[in-house]
């Protein structure tokens, strides 16, 4: 299955129908190991017939814009609203992608989302996982959707 295409389609659909922001998909990164600066990441675990996780990494400025558009409010700073919105974004992306991974998605379950925000951080998962990172741009800023799947 084409994971990159699934990630691109899912992300464009969710931004088009739920967040109401324009997004452009870019080509996947060859080297997925990135350091994120002044960013917030939403992460959700996948358990069941496919194990892994989905993460979305968003710079603070764009995270405020996404939260504002999603919740219909002005967002001045990185606060609980932004954490909830980015966690929910990860949740929606994972919900759609699990359907792409397994027919109707019934045999894959999602954990709760968690968010981490920092001035500079890197994300690492085990060597036995396959990682796909797809960049997108919105409002002139770049964000990343990352899917990790355990090799079986």
């Amino acid at each position: 299955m084409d994971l990159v295409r699934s990630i691109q389609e899912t992300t464009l659909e969710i931004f088009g129908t739920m967040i109401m922001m324009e997004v452009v998909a870019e080509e996947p990164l060859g080297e997925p190991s990135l350091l994120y600066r002044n960013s917030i990441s939403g992460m959700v675990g996948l358990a069941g017939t496919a194990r892994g996780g989905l993460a979305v990494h968003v710079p603070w400025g764009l995270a405020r814009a996404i939260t504002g558009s999603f919740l219909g409010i002005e967002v001045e700073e990185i606060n609980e609203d932004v954490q909830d919105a980015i966690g929910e974004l990860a949740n929606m992306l994972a919900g759609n992608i699990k359907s792409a991974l397994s027919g109707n998605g019934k045999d894959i379950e999602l954990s709760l989302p968690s968010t981490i925000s920092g001035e500079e951080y890197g994300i690492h998962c085990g060597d036995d996982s396959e990682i796909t990172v797809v960049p997108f741009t919105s409002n002139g800023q770049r964000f990343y959707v990352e899917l990790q799947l355990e090799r079986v």
Partner: protein
Amino acid sequence: MGRAGRERVLSGVDEMILAAVTEVFDSMVMLQLRPGQATSCRYEKMPSGVSGLLGLAGEMKAILVIHCPSPVACRIASSLLGEEVEHIDADVEDAVGEIVNLVAGGMKDRLLEAGKKVSLAVPTTVRGRGVLVSGLSGAVCLLMPFDVDGGGRFWVEFKYRLPSPAAEDQTSAEAARKQG
């Protein structure tokens, strides 16, 4: 004790966290711990270091996060690997990922005893500076500090959401019919 809004609370979760963490540190890490009081999660800046995350899904959705400031992460890795580790590197990240995996395994067993069958996702680690964490609206989030004998403190965050009572009644009715 933390109770986020009107979310349903599973009793004994704090004892499960305590038991699961203590078991791993007693048997694998070989470091003595002094647990602190569990509180509800606050929007808070954690010291820079390594955090390990692992999702749980099934009859309850949850996520377990262990936040280790750099010196504590190095101590845990040193003790687990049996060699002195002074700087955060891939081995330290792997050690924290392994700890979160073991603790989540202990939580899975205890949740099953409490009637909640869950399965585990895979661990992810975050290495960073100025990392903020917080709860999630619509979920119960417990934060428990642990002091490591000889110095240092790490935090265990466990966030969960129980299915709505209606959905759960339906599930037990289905289970009863299947057993019937």
